């Protein structure tokens, strides 16, 4: 199979439907968009799309976590954030409407874990807050405020008092924020 106008076979389509949370339309749309991204690379079908190309998508272009999202969902051995079509489907599936809270909170945890060590420590939380607040000086939090905020966050969610938020604590605090499921969504 070469060329960019290749269509998905029925078997592949049903397999994708079975193993992800996406509907048939969403999978076909994703295939179309992914093929267009590959178009510019002139690579064979099944090849990976580099992170820069993926980040040109309008849904990811301005997202503050775009690089982390690509890195989390990428299964490439080079750890360069490039995505294959299956990785792309995984991404859309985790951000889709019908994904379970557990999947969303798991991937959210990995996206927020900037240093990839399995827990959210104070440095991760600081980077998280900085990504979500503005870059200009008057909206950035001062050092004092940041320390206080991180102290509040840890007080609220660190149940075993080890100074970091691990996956279970994160999922626990997420389950008490009902806005999370509806905001952790990217739709093509």
């Amino acid at each position, binding site marked *: 199979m070469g060329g960019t106008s290749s269509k998905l076979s029925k078997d592949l389509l*049903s397999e994708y439907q079975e193993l*992800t949370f996406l509907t048939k339309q969403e999978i076909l749309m994703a295939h179309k968009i992914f093929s267009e991204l590959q178009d510019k690379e002139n690579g064979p079908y099944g090849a990976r799309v580099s992170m820069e190309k993926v980040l040109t998508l309008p849904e990811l272009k301005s997202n503050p976590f775009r690089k982390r999202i690509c890195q989390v969902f990428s299964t490439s051995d080079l750890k360069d954030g490039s995505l294959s079509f299956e990785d792309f489907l*995984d991404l859309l599936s985790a951000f889709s409407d019908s994904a379970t809270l557990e999947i969303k909170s798991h991937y959210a945890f990995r996206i927020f874990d900037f240093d990839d060590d399995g827990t959210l420590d104070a440095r991760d939380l600081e980077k998280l807050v900085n990504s979500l607040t503005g870059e200009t000086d008057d909206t950035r939090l001062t050092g004092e405020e940041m320390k206080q905020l991180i102290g*509040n966050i840890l007080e609220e969610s660190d149940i075993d*008092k080890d100074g970091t938020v691990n996956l279970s604590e994160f999922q626990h605090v997420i389950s008490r924020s009902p806005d999370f499921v509806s905001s952790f969504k990217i739709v093509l």
Partner: protein
Amino acid sequence: MRRMSVFPQHGTALGNLGLTANEIRQETENNTSELVSDLVNLSAGARFEAIRSLHVPFNEKKTIRNRVNSVKLSKTILAADCRQQVSRSFRRFRASLASAMQHLVIWQDTLKEIGGRFGTSVLSYFLFLKWLLQFNLFSLIINFCFITIPQIVHAPNISSITGFRGLELLTGVGYFNKTVLFYGGYNGEVIVSKPAYNMQLAYFFTIAAYLVLCGVSLIYSTSRSFQKNFALETGPVSGGAWRLLCSWDFSVVNEKAIQYNKNNLAIQLKESLSERLQEKNKMSRSDRIKHLSLHLLAWLLSLGLALGSCAGIYFLGTNRELAFSFSHDPSDLGAEASTLLLPVVVSLFNLIVPLLYSLISKIESYSNPRAKIYISIVRTVILKMSILGILCFYWLSFVPTNISCWESFVGQSVYRLLIIDFIFCLLGIFFGEFLRNVIGTMCIQSLGVPEFDIARNVLDLIYGQTLAWIGIYFSPLLPVMQVLKLFIIFYLKKISLSMNCQPPKHTGRAAQIQTVFIALLFFPSFVGALSMVAFTVWSLKPSDQCGPFQGLNTPFHTIFNWTHSLPETHWVRWIFENILRSELFYYLISLIVLVITYFLWQITRGRKELIKTLREQIVNEGKDKAFLLNKLQNLQKERREMASYRPQDFDQTPHFNPNWMNTLPMDM
């Protein structure tokens, strides 16, 4: 089902324990085998869901699924394979049905666009509008099918006293008077057809069934929303920092909107930080008294304004309406137009008084901005419900004794109220949003672009829907108006939103405010409308000259007549006489419900205690874990150092020298 464990990635969890690559691979293999054996034991549907919800990349999911399938294949016989085929095809059918239904969903693209630019809290307004539209469409369809079509087909009696003039669209009298739009256009005879169709029973049961279904659906939505958004409020400190961070809206794609959201979030974080600091400062006694008296004053003013507007409506508006219907002169256009005075007065009060309320609330100081929003919602609801209350009082106590065919009169009143409310809504979009935007950007720069006020708009929708529910008994085709109105408002609001407004600043707790709105739709709105209709049906004498219930004492007597016409031993008659009409039944039901409520309350209390104990247990286990990890790391360090010293084969493990002080140089 056992929770699927986190698969170690390069450098995460397990990697930190300092295990070698081989050990990691071994651990992964063990995890996978356990996972596969767990999955094999599940039923097909559950297994399908479980594999889908694994948080591993796609190819690993595929390998796991293939392993599970091969294990299953080696275990099962052909008959089970057939069952699997059937369940798989059933699943595919359900998926294709769901995707086909998606095509029927209207406005899907528009809603996604709104969500992308303005966020989920503004989107919730439009979703609420869509939900109300569904209620009204449903009512329209069943009313049309069960009441209107039989009436039109079998007994057309449209005898218009006057021809159609334009004013009818606004006032609802004249040409529309005896049509099927209002109660008066129906008569209650039994239509002679193959199964005899009793129009009285049809009218009664259609409206009753619709209201019951509405009630059930509202109770279900309220309780589900409450459970999702409120019930888990307990916890150490619901400080809100996490909630703010987790409410970051990933579906917003517009770059300016994202920048705006970032600024907002920074402001909200700073506000919540300063709130926490302030909480620690206690207010002095005189300050507290001052605040309390200001609150009291504001409440008194608000209630006074509400009472004043009710009195104004009662005295100003009602005379003109009655005067017109007494005059019976269809060509008196002036008097007919003056019946519009009442709806205009009502809409004016509904528009101006909430603005006064927001001015009043500026003199008060609140401990947090959420309390401000809730209190303003409560005051506005009190205002709107008292206006509706005074209108209902006027309709139910004064009108039936003085006007012939009074149900049509009430229906026409409600119709006028709805139309004028719609016109004021259009005017509000034009003046409130468009002109304010122009003024804010061009003339007075400090005002800025107007914010989309979700609370006010949703309360307007609730008010309109209450009117529609009240009017359904008196005017079965009123939902037509409501459906058209909601349709047009959706598109106009969307256009106005894109052109004129910016998203609201305080977007936290959107889900809780959603629950409050759904609960408001149920409690004062639907319950009020239902009690008014129930009162009419139960105790008021229907008019003698028109309508399906002519000649009866109360509309409820149709049921009596019908059950009495059935033979003595018929089961419907037996249920009606001995169960629904006996008080003992209701006492028993109330008693059982109270007992069950008490049990559930006790269970909830027990569970809260359990949660507290479990939290303490987690803290203790965390300390244990830290201690054990430390010990493990020390042991491994010693083991490695021993292994590296082995070739030389003498013990040089560093151990603590108690005489370390003696090893320091003398001249330190």
